[in-house]
């Protein structure tokens, strides 16, 4: 089997992004259908998924793939694919493919589709770069590519609401990346290196506790935690999300809530835990996670906007992930990673359901919706699957991941009680949303509403099936995240492989 270098996972969507306007021009010149750009983007992202999937056998065989540019690490730039990178890359390309398929029909009435698909491919490029780079500064650069594409996509529909949300997201997001850049600057000033593996070794003294920790060593983790918490929409850095996700086109909301916020969580795992080795700040992360769980779910209460309600649940579910990460134990990190996977599936499904309702009913206001189970029965069932999944109901995927997080926080009864209370509230609010949208009497203006088109239902069905399969076979999910958890809890393999036996 030919070994494909990890760089291809970045190059392919990047070139695809720059080729999209050319494809759009050629298809327009020859009078081909407008959807050509969309299918081109789907082909590129599916090919990226195939490239990432081709690395599975090597990484499962306990091999860490290292791709070097020029000089050897720590001096040269390198790409590293370990269990955590592979897990994230599969999630990004998988959800990205489904979002691209969903976009073809959902976005067909919009203009400037070449710009839309260019930005979609750039987001994928940025996220792929973030997860496979072995260099902290390149991580920042790829993070900026992701975020700048996301800012523009949020404002893509050019309504007042979306432009305002895009600007807010840009300003808060820039503050987050400024924290990260300042953290990188101090890291380089302190350790004289930008290579993640090299820095892992140099920062080992932080956890040893052998000497008093200098102020700069306190400032660096604080800056990274704050910066990545902005990206992951953790309370109190969450405010941008509730504006940005509802205002974005629905496929982009699915991508943002599905995987883009997980990039922040990846940053915490890779940089704060693995690079800085700052496991002692776990309790701070756990408290932040718990606050996010509670605030997110309570703010979802009383929302009249379908997508805004879902956006607050994204904040709440990210809190569960951070709670698991903060507990710092193997089961906690395993639960957090599994929940990250589950949330990417569930929230992509939920936002796609909301998008299907918006596509047909032309509104996302609960007060103007109702009785859609008669006209959109498949969407109703798929949303119900999403609702049961996100609430941690047995036989649905989040049950297993939340159980693992509960098991990890069993030593803290207060944490456990708050997390379970939030879980029950999540169930209540999702069933309320289901009742308001799909049950009751159908208003006169919704009488002509039809079921969502097949091309939109297809990715939603795949996501719903994944919710059930991972719920019925939780061991499969834990096996999927097992290699990633091993990479997080045992970073010495990463250092050894990248630095060549150091």
């Amino acid at each position: 089997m030919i070994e494909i270098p990890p760089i291809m996972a970045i190059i392919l969507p990047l070139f695809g992004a720059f080729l999209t306007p050319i494809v759009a021009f050629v298809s327009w010149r020859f009078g081909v259908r407008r959807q050509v750009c969309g299918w081109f983007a789907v082909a590129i992202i599916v090919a990226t998924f195939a490239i990432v999937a081709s690395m599975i056998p090597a990484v499962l065989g306990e091999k860490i793939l290292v791709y070097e540019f020029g000089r050897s690490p720590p001096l040269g730039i390198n790409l590293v694919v370990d269990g955590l990178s592979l897990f994230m890359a599969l999630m990004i390309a998988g959800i990205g493919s489904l979002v691209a398929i969903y976009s073809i029909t959902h976005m067909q009435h919009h203009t400037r589709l070449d710009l839309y698909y260019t930005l979609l491919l750039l987001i994928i490029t940025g996220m792929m770069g973030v997860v496979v780079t072995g260099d902290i500064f390149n991580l920042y650069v790829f993070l900026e590519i992701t975020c700048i594409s996301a800012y523009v996509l949020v404002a893509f529909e050019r309504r007042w609401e979306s432009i305002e949300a895009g600007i807010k997201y840009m300003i808060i997001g820039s503050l987050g990346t400024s924290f990260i850049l300042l953290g990188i600057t101090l890291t380089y000033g302190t350790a004289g290196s930008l290579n993640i593996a090299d820095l892992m070794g140099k920062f080992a003294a932080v956890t040893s506790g052998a000497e008093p920790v200098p102020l700069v060593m306190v400032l660096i983790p604080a800056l990274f935690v704050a910066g990545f918490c902005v990206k992951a929409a953790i309370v109190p850095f969450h405010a941008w999300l509730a504006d940005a996700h509802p205002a974005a086109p629905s496929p982009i909301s699915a991508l943002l809530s599905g995987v883009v916020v997980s990039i922040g969580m990846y940053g915490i795992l890779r940089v704060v835990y693995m690079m800085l080795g700052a496991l002692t700040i776990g309790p701070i992360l756990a408290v932040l996670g718990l606050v996010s769980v509670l605030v997110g779910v309570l703010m979802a209460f009383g929302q009249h906007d379908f997508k805004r309600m879902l956006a607050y649940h994204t904040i709440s579910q990210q809190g569960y992930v951070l709670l698991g990460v903060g507990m710092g134990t193997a089961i906690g990190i395993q639960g957090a990673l599994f929940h990250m996977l589950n949330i990417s599936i569930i929230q992509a499904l939920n936002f796609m359901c909301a998008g299907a309702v918006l596509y047909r009913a032309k509104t996302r206001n609960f007060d103007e919706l109702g009785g859609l189970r008669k006209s959109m029965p498949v969407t109703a069932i798929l949303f119900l699957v999403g609702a049961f999944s996100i609430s941690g109901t047995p036989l649905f995927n989040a049950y297993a991941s939340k159980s693992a997080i509960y098991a990890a926080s069993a030593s803290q009864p207060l944490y456990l009680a708050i997390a379970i209370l939030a879980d029950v509230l999540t169930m209540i609010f999702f069933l309320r949303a289901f009742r308001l949208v799909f049950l009751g009497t159908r208003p006169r203006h919704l009488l002509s509403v039809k079921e969502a088109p097949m091309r939109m239902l297809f990715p939603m069905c795949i996501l719903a099936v994944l919710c059930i399969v991972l719920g019925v076979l939780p061991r499969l999910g834990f096996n999927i995240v097992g290699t990633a958890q091993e990479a997080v809890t045992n970073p010495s393999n990463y250092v050894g492989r990248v630095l060549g036996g150091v």
Partner: protein
Amino acid sequence: MELLHVIATILLDTIVVYFSLVVKRQTSERFWSLIRKTFWPFYHYVKPGHSGILSTYLLWAVVGFVAIFLATMVVLG
């Protein structure tokens, strides 16, 4: 323990489904108002529209950073 967890979750979910979907609207409204009353002090400050002001968002982010910095100092210090 595992079995107990499953049974408790199913029981809880059944109650929630019953109250949310099955109970008639009037009773259901009463059920919702109980939650509203309980969380009112909190809900009063975070109403649907959020604060919506960018400077408030930035203030929260900066306050969050200061809080994390101080907490990190205590933990690592």
